[in-house]
């Protein structure tokens, strides 16, 4: 497999966008720590976009790490697995930060656990070959990824095997591994790229094989020079190219990433595969490598615990299903001026109402923001300054869409392409009148009558 790279002709950036403060320094240099096995994990039966899982076990049975708890409930779905050794209990309901009520399988820790360095070695350690991978065929990789319950680990949690499905109508030539991490604060992908570059490269090669891509690029924002350097070294002798991208939000969104790397535009409401591209996150790439080479399901992930409102910001390797409160307590808890606990980053993350809710496969971090960090001027009327137009990465007119949503003027909302909005929040971040633009647009998307 040789990359010609004739298609990596992007400009390394995208039009418009915003420059929020990076604030990565809280946990940027904190080496990933192995979270000690919690007393209990609570594993939601749905952690992905698509159909919920079907419960596959009885209550009160002994399970070991990797045992299946729930089977995929359809093609666009992903199975879930035990992340610690222990005994299951009757399912309980939990409210995830997204506001979704989900049925979860609790597991009480019991017996020996894989801990510390041994756990790290099991997940990221050992040898990650970059040659001889040709023996893994598309069907095999797709099945391994599907069985391992792998979903997009950048946050959206779209089942990865769906992206790997055979698609003769829309041939794929490019695989982009998303290492942008354009959300402020978050450092989980960065630490992963710095500390475990080998499985990312192996995963990228396997994913490229699955989708039939000859061009493989890892896009990394240029505020992470160390990650770029380490990945370049790890990718030596492979067709994987490291593409530094200009640091700008939302560079990590597919609609900004694909044009920046290959200069192709994803059609409105379309997917990267419409332009011959598959995008997966760096964390997802490591999970793919582990699933295909070692037959291990997705049971652990890296998450950042960061922000000015947490006592000891850290990056952690955690079992899926650990509660946010356990994670927070391990990091020293809230500081007195903490104001919001956010699952993910501050631009698109969800505030956590119930700190006992579990970390899922798509949880990239826990950001604790202080009152000072969330300071915002009082809302005044729109003066039509057009700043939101200047920053919208999709070239929309956010103020018009937001006002149309507010007053339920659906014809106007439609004329201004309400449905094209991807809710990145650049408009609301920028608005000098502090109008909650993206928030109103979300309401509009939910309320607009379907044709």
């Amino acid at each position: 497999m040789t990359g010609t790279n004739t298609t990596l002709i992007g400009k390394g950036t995208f039009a418009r966008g915003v420059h929020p403060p990076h604030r990565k320094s809280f946990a940027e240099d904190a080496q990933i720590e192995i979270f000690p096995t919690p007393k209990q994990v609570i594993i939601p039966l749905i952690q992905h976009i698509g159909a919920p899982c079907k419960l596959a076990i009885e209550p009160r049975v002994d399970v070991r790490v990797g045992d299946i708890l729930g089977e995929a409930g359809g093609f666009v779905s992903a199975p879930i697995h035990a992340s610690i050794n222990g005994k299951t209990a009757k399912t309980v309901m939990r409210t995830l930060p997204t506001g979704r009520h989900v049925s979860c399988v609790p597991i009480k820790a019991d017996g020996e656990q894989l801990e510390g360095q041994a756990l790290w070695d099991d997940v990221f350690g050992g040898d990650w070959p970059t040659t001889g991978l040709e023996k893994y065929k598309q069907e095999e990789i797709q099945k391994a990824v599907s069985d391992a319950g792998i979903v997009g680990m950048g946050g959206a949690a779209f089942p990865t095997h769906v992206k790997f499905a055979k698609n003769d109508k829309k041939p794929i030539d490019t695989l982009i591994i998303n290492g942008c991490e354009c959300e402020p604060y978050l450092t989980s992908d960065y630490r992963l790229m710095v500390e475990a570059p080998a499985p990312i490269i192996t995963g990228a090669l396997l994913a490229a094989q699955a989708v039939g891509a000859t061009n493989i690029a890892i896009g990394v924002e240029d505020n992470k020079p160390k990650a770029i350097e380490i990945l370049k070294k790890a990718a030596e002798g492979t067709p994987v190219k490291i593409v530094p991208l200009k640091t700008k939000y939302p560079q990590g969104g597919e609609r900004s990433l694909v044009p920046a790397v290959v200069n192709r535009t994803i059609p409105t409401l379309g997917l990267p595969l419409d332009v011959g591209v598959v995008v997966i996150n760096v964390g997802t790439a490591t999970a793919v490598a582990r699933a295909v080479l070692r037959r291990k399901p997705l049971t652990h992930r890296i998450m950042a615990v960061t922000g000015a409102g947490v006592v000891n910001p850290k990056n952690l390797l955690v079992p899926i299903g650990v509660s946010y409160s356990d994670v927070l307590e391990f990091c020293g808890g809230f500081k007195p001026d903490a104001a919001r606990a956010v699952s993910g980053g501050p631009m698109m993350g969800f505030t956590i109402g119930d700190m006992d809710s579990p970390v899922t496969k798509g949880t990239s971090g826990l950001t604790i923001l202080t009152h000072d960090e969330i300071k915002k001027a009082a809302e005044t009327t729109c003066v039509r300054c057009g700043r939101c137009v200047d920053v919208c990465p999709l070239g929309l007119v956010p103020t018009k869409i937001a006002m149309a949503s507010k007053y339920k003027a659906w014809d106007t909302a439609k004329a201004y392409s309400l449905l094209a909005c991807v809710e990145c929040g650049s408009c609301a971040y920028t608005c000098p009148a502090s109008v909650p633009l993206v928030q109103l647009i979300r309401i509009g998307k939910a309320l607009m009558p379907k044709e």
Partner: protein
Amino acid sequence: MNENTDKVKTAEKVEKPVINPSIQVTVSPHLSNTAFTTQKMMIDVLIALVPLLAVAIWVFKWHVVVQVGISVLSCLAFEALFTSWRLKKITLGDYSAAVTGVILGLSLPSSVPWYVAFIGSMAAIGLGKIAFGGLGYNIFNPAMVGRAFVLFAFPMALGAAAYQVAGGMEVLTQATPLTLAKQLGQSTPLWALLIGNTNGSLGETSAIACILGGIYLCIKRTASWEIPVSAIAALIVFAGIGNLTNTSAEWTVLHHLVGGAFLFGAFFIATDPVTSPLTPKGKVIFGIGFAAVVMLIRAFSGYPEGVMFAVLLMNAVTPLINKWTIPVPFGGPVPVRK
């Protein structure tokens, strides 16, 4: 919402004092750019007007302080009065009324009686702004509404003859450069138009001051550069065409550009965000239209200058321009779902 941290079940952790701050639940984004607010925008405009005020004080002396002072104070007073009549919160702190006051004051001749600025301010804030719902809702630039009102109410006070006053600089005894050009075919030296020792409305005389302040506004993105740049380019083209058809004119393209209120209007009045289009494309159309109307009035109407009418006319068609320039999303139009 209070967190039940007492439910924490980690093995290693023993009784440690746990802080339970009250945690908010809300929607993203959780950060906002506090460096740029509506208030700071208005302060930017006031800063950008300083060079104009300085030149005006040099040329017109204490008249400037009186006119601008009256119009700023009365704009603030009328804003407070009319807003309180509507039982709304009085927001003088956003400085928008102050900006209206300064621009209105600078758009008047030095000789007008005190009540002209006062009544102009009443019309600007009352008719131009509050009647439409206040800041952000007005269709027309309030300062230009105020000026148009007093132009019709006191034609003598604002007519071409009103500009000629005795005392002060010698240039003030002459007609304004545009009137001289229109009625007598006399030209004014370019350097005078640039530095501003000519007659005219208080703020318009110096092209250099307008350009300095204007560039500041564009760099700060408080004014959209698309409007002045397209207006200037369009004016050069239209004035160039005009000069081609009348080669004897001493009033050249450059005179059209730096003379009169064109630059003052292009940088400070046409760029009022509330009354100009939203998209870059719309702003370019707006700028071209503004320059076209200015040139039409200068060339064919009885008035020597057309900036005020050009702004008001383009304000009126701004909703239409917005409608014409609805952008297509980056990824193409939203497909119709079956």
